[in-house]
């Protein structure tokens, strides 16, 4: 059984698309890690509503100017990195696809980037003739979109481009040749990008996408009970694993719904959250027991890696993205490990949070732990969330620790296999590199 899974995964990862994805993710890792560190600083340290700034009473001793300046700086770095993430994704994805088929990779990368911009351009929104883009398509939450455009660009270069091998030193003559050779595939790319872009403008893809996201948002705000929440959550987690993050963000954002307010009011007037009117609110169960820092139990994967993998670059990435993930900023881990589009992590990433939530719901049902009803500040470390949301209930803390340990145990074999797969693929790549041109 294990062997079959291992072989299937390795075979999957050897497919052109996954090979390109792997390389793209690898190159993007530093961006994502730095971005997530700044996001952590922004949302969990220098935000006036965050746990850290509250329990250390930043408002009492840290001058406003310093606090605000730090907030703006961290917010700016995060927004710029994650807001333009698609551009680099498209660039690297096109580049590595072209390189895989021995075409001009740099030209492909530039074409891919431009194709993405054409797709995201608002053709019908030309007030004052300023450039206007659908920034949502360039955001890290639309990662898959940019990746596919880059991949498509690479494929166009594969079929229309001339063969080219990168060299260490190029003469002016060679460069000229490259430029002329790239006309055909570049034009084809842009033409297709243009058609997609205009079609997208015509059929209001933006509206459709907005409606799609808003569906998740309004569902999230309704704060559904488990039965309706879980199917939506599964879909959102699947999309998140594919690199479309917005639905999950929208679904799990709402906290001020009528049901939550009723729960909080009950808890406040009765001094505890044992018998709140709505004990099985989907989102509050997800926040308390389905996350533990980072969507899809990212933190658990990182701990598994840190325990199990000793000498590997994966362990380094895990260390760097550990603290941000603990506070909920997990993009560094998603891109760097990678977890996104990594077939091995698909099932646990989607289903384990739901298993956790169901276990917690049954514990609530048999009155071993109270429901999570109290307000929780942003930037609360994942494993402490349930403890705080129950106003410091010890049973809830002990249960979340046990659940956390249980998740780590479940993840260990998967992490072990992830390491073996990675070793195998590195080996195969090295073999290839031995007889190919500069890659």
């Amino acid at each position, binding site marked *: 059984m294990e062997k079959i899974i291992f072989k299937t995964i390795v075979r999957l990862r050897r497919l052109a698309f996954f090979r390109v994805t792997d390389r793209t993710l690898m190159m993007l890792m530093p961006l994502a890690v730095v971005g997530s560190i700044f996001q952590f600083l922004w949302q969990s340290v220098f935000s006036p509503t965050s746990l850290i700034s509250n329990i250390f009473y930043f408002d009492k001793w840290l001058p406003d100017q310093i606090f605000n300046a730090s907030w703006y700086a961290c917010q700016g770095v995060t927004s710029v990195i994650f807001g333009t993430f698609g551009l680099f994704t498209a660039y690297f994805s096109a580049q590595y696809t072209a390189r895989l088929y021995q075409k001009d990779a740099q030209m492909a990368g530039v074409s891919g980037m431009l194709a993405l911009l054409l797709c995201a351009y608002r053709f019908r929104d030309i007030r004052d003739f300023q450039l206007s883009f659908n920034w949502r398509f360039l955001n890290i939450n639309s990662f898959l979109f940019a990746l596919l455009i880059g991949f498509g660009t690479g494929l166009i270069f594969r079929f229309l481009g001339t063969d080219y091998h990168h060299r260490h030193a190029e003469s002016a003559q060679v460069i000229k040749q490259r430029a002329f050779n790239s006309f055909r595939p570049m034009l084809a790319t842009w033409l297709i990008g243009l058609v997609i872009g205009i079609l997208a403008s015509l059929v209001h893809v933006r509206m459709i996408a907005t409606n799609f996201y808003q569906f998740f948002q309004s569902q999230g705000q309704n704060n559904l009970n488990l039965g309706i929440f879980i199917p939506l959550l599964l879909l959102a987690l699947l999309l998140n694993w594919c690199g479309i993050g917005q639905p999950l963000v929208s679904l799990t954002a709402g906290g001020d719904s009528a049901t939550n307010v009723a729960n909080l009011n009950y808890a406040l007037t*009765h001094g505890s959250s044992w018998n709140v009117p709505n004990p099985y609110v989907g989102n509050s169960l997800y926040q308390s027991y389905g996350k533990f820092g980072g969507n899809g139990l990212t933190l658990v994967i990182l701990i598994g890696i840190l325990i199990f993998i*000793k000498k590997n670059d994966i362990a380094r990435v895990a260390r760097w993205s550990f603290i941000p993930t603990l506070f909920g900023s997990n993009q560094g881990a998603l891109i760097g490990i990678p977890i996104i589009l990594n077939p091995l992590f698909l099932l646990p990433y989607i289903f384990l949070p739901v298993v956790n939530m169901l276990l917690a719901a049954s514990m609530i049902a048999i009155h071993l732990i109270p429901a999570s009803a109290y307000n929780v500040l942003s930037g609360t470390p994942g494993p402490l969330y349930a*403890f705080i949301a129950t106003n410091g209930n010890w049973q809830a803390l002990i249960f979340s620790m046990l659940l956390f340990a249980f998740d780590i145990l479940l993840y260990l074999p998967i992490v072990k296999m992830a390491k073996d797969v990675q070793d195998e693929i590195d080996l195969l790549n090295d073999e290839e590199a031995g007889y190919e041109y500069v890659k």
Partner: protein
Amino acid sequence: MNMLNKDRISKNRLLLLGTFIFLIVLSIPTFFWIKSANHDLAERRKSQMSPVIMIPGSSATTERFNELVNLLNKDTLKKHSLLKIQVKKDGTLKYSGKINRNDNEPFIVVGFENNHDGYANIKKQAGWFDEAFAQLSQQYKFNNFKAFGHSNGGLIWTYWLEKYYADYSDEIKIKKLMTLGTPYNFNESNVDHKTEMLNDFIKNRKKIPKNLDVYSVSGGENYESDGLVPESSVAAGKYIFQNQVKHYTTMTVTGSDAQHSSLPQNKQVVQLIKQYLLENNSGNNIPVNGQKPRENNKKK
């Protein structure tokens, strides 16, 4: 290579161990912080108190409303207590009077050491008022209140609502605002000449809460003014409140004591305050059909 491995292992373990200790250390202050925050929140939810907070006009002191409160307390069994707070120029508060323990609807007057006129001063006074409000809300933990402002007091209220109220709006609800002879356009009688202050108020009107009831009462000594403030300046309040708050009602009282400075002692005004600003809950203490207590019993 082996040495390197060992080094890496310990780095991983170190991070895990460090995080574990960090979490434990963090959870201790968090525990106490969260307990006290939730305790605060609970007290506020339970609080039955709904004070009437009053701000006098320029040149007036915290004693300005003494007679008004006497008149309001005259024919009623439920006496309202009166707390007076003077905010000094440096933001410190001087208390006089007190709130009786069982009084759910006390009057709180907030006056200022610097009680001069002018837009620049009104901004300052709104800041001082905010100091007082922050302390009051901390101390008495009320979750709703009613606002009353005479003359420039109404301007301070408006400025405070637009600039400061958002800090409290999650936890404290302003139910009603009554302004009395408030010159929203200062002494300008032509509405086409909007003062800087009125323009600012109109610009930021969206910040005024939508569920607020606003009553603007003006005095009519003659057909144009209450002897000091032009009627059209009072009426300019509609550009701020109308179509923003739930109800915006204007009323004009005439006859004796309709002069600007006499308004707070005007019998009609006292009636209006009783009728519109205060809670008309004479039957509140006597449950009508006993439904409420039973519901409470069930929960217990």
